């Protein structure tokens, strides 16, 4: 046990709950108490949990959209360049610039760029790959992917204070509150 009350050295405090509803209620109360550096871990999606811990709206949709637009333009430009400039060829008497025929490939490249862009953005925004994360130092945490629900208050929170935060989390009725080593 360390005796500093500022939580130096620890990643934070983690409360363990048995049901998603308990986790959601606890998250709402903790946020309501003024804590902002929160994270919640659940084996299944919990509706409203993101909003409860104040998780910001990500701009992943905007990234997908922009990647899609770039993909569409690139696909169309590629075909224009091939059919009009680099290698114009008479295909069944159709015009070199065959607008409708360009659409399927344009559509495909739109999807391709949007999908790849989204996956890459997802990895980057989630700061992956991340070989080490402190929450795994808590032995119980392995059940976060099975049947337990965790709420972690991180020590970087301005309001974080080891004993005070611990007793606050205890008041939420968790199974256990553990300190997470950094």
């Amino acid at each position: 046990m360390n005796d500093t009350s500022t939580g130096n050295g620890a990643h934070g405090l983690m409360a363990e709950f048995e049901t998603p509803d308990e986790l959601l209620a606890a998250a709402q109360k903790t946020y309501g108490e003024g804590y902002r550096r929160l994270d919640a871990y659940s084996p299944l999606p919990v509706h409203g949990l993101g909003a409860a811990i104040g998780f910001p709206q990500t701009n992943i949709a905007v990234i997908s959209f922009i990647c899609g637009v770039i993909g569409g333009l690139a696909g169309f430009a590629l075909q224009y360049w091939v059919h009009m400039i680099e290698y114009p060829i008479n295909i069944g008497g159709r015009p070199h610039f065959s607008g409708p025929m360009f659409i399927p490939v344009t559509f495909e490249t739109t999807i391709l760029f949007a999908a790849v862009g989204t996956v890459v953005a997802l990895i980057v925004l989630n700061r992956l790959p991340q070989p080490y994360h402190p929450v795994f130092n808590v032995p119980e945490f392995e059940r976060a992917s099975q049947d337990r629900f965790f709420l972690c208050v991180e020590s970087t929170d301005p309001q974080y204070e080891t004993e005070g935060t611990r007793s606050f989390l205890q008041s939420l009725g968790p199974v256990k509150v553990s300190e997470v080593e950094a």
Partner: protein
Amino acid sequence: MIEEIQRHSEALAPRFDGYRRRALAIGLIGIAATVFGYLTDHQQFFESYLLGFTYWVCMPVGCLGVLMIHHLGGGRWGFAIRRMLEAGASTMPVMFILGLPILAGMHDLFPWTHTEAVANDEVLTHKLPYLNSTFFIIRYVAYFAIWTAMAMLLTRWSVQQDQTQETWPTRRMQILSGPGIVLLSLLGTFAGTDWLMSLEPHWFSTIFCAIYILGMALMTWAFMTLVGVPLSKHQPLDVLLTNERLRDLGTMMLGFVMLWAYTSFSQLLIIWSGNLPEEITWYYTRLQGGWLYLGYALIGFHFAVPFLLLLSSRVKSHLRILIVVASGLMFMRLVDLYWITAPAFRDHDGGVLQSVALTPHWLDLAAPIGLGGIWVFFFFGQLKKRPLVPSNDPRFDYGALAAEAQEHGHHG
């Protein structure tokens, strides 16, 4: 709870009566104008009337289809709009009667009714067993008979479910909806072939009627949005038709806008790249002069603009934008049908590459407005008849929802 829903629903009756009065007034003015048009120009009257009929018949049939999708799939959006869908489907007999002038005007509309022309045309002679006046009328009656029967059964069981805790009515609605949706697609295919595709009897496209059927569903989502937004501010639908549910309707519109674009473009791509004389004439006429610009307008306002607006969940949570998009789509459905039907009358011989002028007639607006007013009048008449929220459905508990909303209301 049922009494409460009943009470809240009845409280809305004056509002519905207000809508009905206005719709009836608009409808009667439109019909009067259309009748005047009949006296001045027979041919144009039937052309515009067919446009109005093929447009508004989409509403009851589309409502029936979406109702069946709801019974099969569940989901809270469906419970929120079920009574509106039932009201829409219940107007089927009205559309049957409103469509009778089409039968009277067959000879002015459909080239395959011209006996001497058909006799000289080998292709049309071959199509005679299907495309003949008697069978056309029989089919018209059959479509409406089956549609009406399915609509009546679903509506009656839904009312019976309101009155019993047992679940058999819901079970029956689900059992009917499975085969029902298959039957509905088949009937829609035949009806689209009869009323729209056979205007140019030499031309054929296998995806054409799918476009028409998807358009019916799209119109239904748009109309549900237009009716749903004002109702969402009043009991009993306020707790059910929340902003999230209205956004669901927007998502459905997005999906069907994409489906419409996908099927419409597929038809263009296949026919354009095939470039066969018996197919390409249809597009040739429609991609000349003013019709081409109308085609661009369809790409822009039937696809691109609503697609981009509905794509973002942030944008479509603004009810005002949702209303604008829904109204725009309702109008663009009419433009699409105009683009499909009107050139056919100016190119009656078919099979010939021909440019025709884009010359809209005031009747092309008067007839759809007249028919629309009448239809909306009957729609709200039906909507008034039953409580606005279904009760006792085993998959849905309005009481719990209302209690939860009340609790949240106290917190907020």
